[in-house]
């Protein structure tokens, strides 16, 4: 049986997490179809056809799918999904919003946020804020799964040549409408795909002091993240939050500055390859996961760090 992967896109470009999700699909089987549901999404479908490992791209181009409202897309996914053995989507806010709805329409218990494929029906996923890893087996005929992008290496975005087929089903459930969007603008790399992340916590003391981290990040080509404490204190907007309830990241280098290391935060970053902690409290729990720890005042260390790079 084939695998249906739901592409995350903005009608023009395919988002990176889709490539990691296809990698997870490849660990299950090799006939992978990619669904691009949107409006005026020709550019995204063309890009989708070039992705390595995809055998067919299904395009549902209709006004009803413009903002990928869960009510409309879930119905489409459930209709198409009946013919597949697996339906996968990235565990992003879009995937998490839509896929459980599609699963319930198919009368299936979905499996969220998998980090490994053990067999076609068996997956590993973190529970209790990443403090426990569960191996779960599904007895449903269709496996509906969201994939933690950071746990799978992405497939190549180029090199494939999938056939593109358009899907004519179009239904507006008529219960929801898109009103507007406010996206935070940033020139730095996106948090979930950045190779290096510099994150600040309550120890930064104010939003202005984050300037220091931005400077350091620009030298490193890094993205800037934050702990929940820094977000709640109003230092930075909440889409910068790393943690169980924010973004899950796994960069090559994660630099935690003025972050104590609550378990909710660790759940979002402890799979990073190298972790550096800079904190003046040597008892801070962040030091228990850090590869390199520096016990000192961040206001002295960060400017010095920046000039020495």
């Amino acid at each position: 049986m084939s695998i249906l992967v739901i592409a995350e896109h903005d009608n023009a470009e395919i988002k990176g997490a889709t490539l990691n999700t296809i990698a997870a699909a490849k660990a299950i089987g090799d006939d992978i179809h990619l669904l691009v549901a949107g409006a005026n999404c020709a550019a995204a479908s063309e890009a989708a056809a070039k992705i390595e490992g995809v055998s067919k791209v299904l395009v549902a181009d209709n006004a009803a799918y413009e903002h990928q409202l869960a009510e409309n897309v879930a119905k489409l996914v459930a209709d198409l999904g009946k013919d597949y053995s697996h339906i996968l989507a990235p565990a992003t806010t879009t995937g998490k919003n839509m896929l459980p709805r599609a699963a319930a329409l198919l009368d299936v218990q979905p499996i969220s946020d998998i980090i490994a494929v053990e067999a076609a029906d068996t997956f590993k996923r973190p529970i209790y804020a990443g403090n426990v890893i569960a191996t779960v087996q599904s007895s449903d005929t269709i496996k509906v799964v969201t994939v933690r992008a950071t746990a799978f290496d992405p497939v190549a975005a180029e090199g494939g040549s999938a056939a593109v087929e358009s899907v004519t089903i179009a239904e507006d459930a008529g219960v929801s409408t898109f009103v507007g969007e406010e996206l935070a603008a940033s020139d730095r790399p996106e948090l979930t795909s950045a190779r290096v992340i510099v994150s600040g916590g309550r120890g930064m003391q104010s939003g202005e002091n984050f300037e220091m981290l931005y400077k350091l990040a620009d030298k490193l080509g890094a993205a800037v993240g934050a702990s929940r404490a820094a977000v709640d204190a109003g230092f930075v907007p909440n889409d910068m939050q790393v943690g169980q309830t924010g973004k899950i990241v796994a960069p090559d280098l994660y630099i935690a500055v003025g972050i104590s290391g609550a378990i909710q935060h660790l759940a979002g970053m402890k799979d990073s390859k190298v972790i550096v902690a800079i904190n003046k409290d040597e008892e801070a729990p962040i030091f228990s996961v850090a590869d390199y720890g520096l016990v000192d005042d961040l206001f002295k260390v960060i400017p010095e760090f920046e000039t020495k790079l």
Partner: protein
Amino acid sequence: MKVLVAVKRVVDYNVKVRPKADGSDVDTANVKMSINPFCEIAVEEAVRLKEKGVVSEIVAVSMGPKQCQEQIRTALALGADRGILVETDAELQPLAVAKCLKAIVEKEEPQLVILGKQSIDGDNNQTGQMLGALTGMGQGTFASEVTVEGEKVKVTREIDGGLQTVELKLPAIVTTDLRLNEPRYASLPNIMKAKKKPLDTTTPDELGVDIAPRTKTLKVEPPAERKAGVKVESVDELVDKLKNEAKVI
């Protein structure tokens, strides 16, 4: 209008859980239990809507063993008017919970159903969305702002990259994100009053819902340990280690 709020009994968020030695399950014996933090935010939002005069009645519902009564009583102490316990000792997966909730929604006919975005034990983030599918209602997930305007509700949602606003026809489903509000504490007089508020008990059987689990947990284990790190003395040493030892910059 009437609001239905779903609350879950979970291991308290301050407790660090461990798998049992045989790897069969998480050890929850003698562990402190609480109302799931996102559910607390859901109750708070319902109470605030009532205080604004938008909502006339709040019904709190929970599912699981008899002890879930404690979490319903907490919701009643925070301002809910009455409770419903769907009692069962069997394992409940989100699909089963969504089906039980659908049965209760049909009976109670609320205009708004508020749930937390996820429970901090299973970390599934599914139940609200699945209830949406089963009832056909619109869903405003990961809400950071909720405004009821006539026959509609406007929900600002936290998405990757920022915020998105959607408008849903009532009846609708909202799942709460952390920044929706700051839950109040229950006062002692309200805790006493909550003991007198009505709490009905039913079972999945009485609701006509099949709760048979669809997935089986084969094993639970602790995550791979990170190897112990080193403390460096200076920025120079840190830069040197990152360049020459870890080779990440």
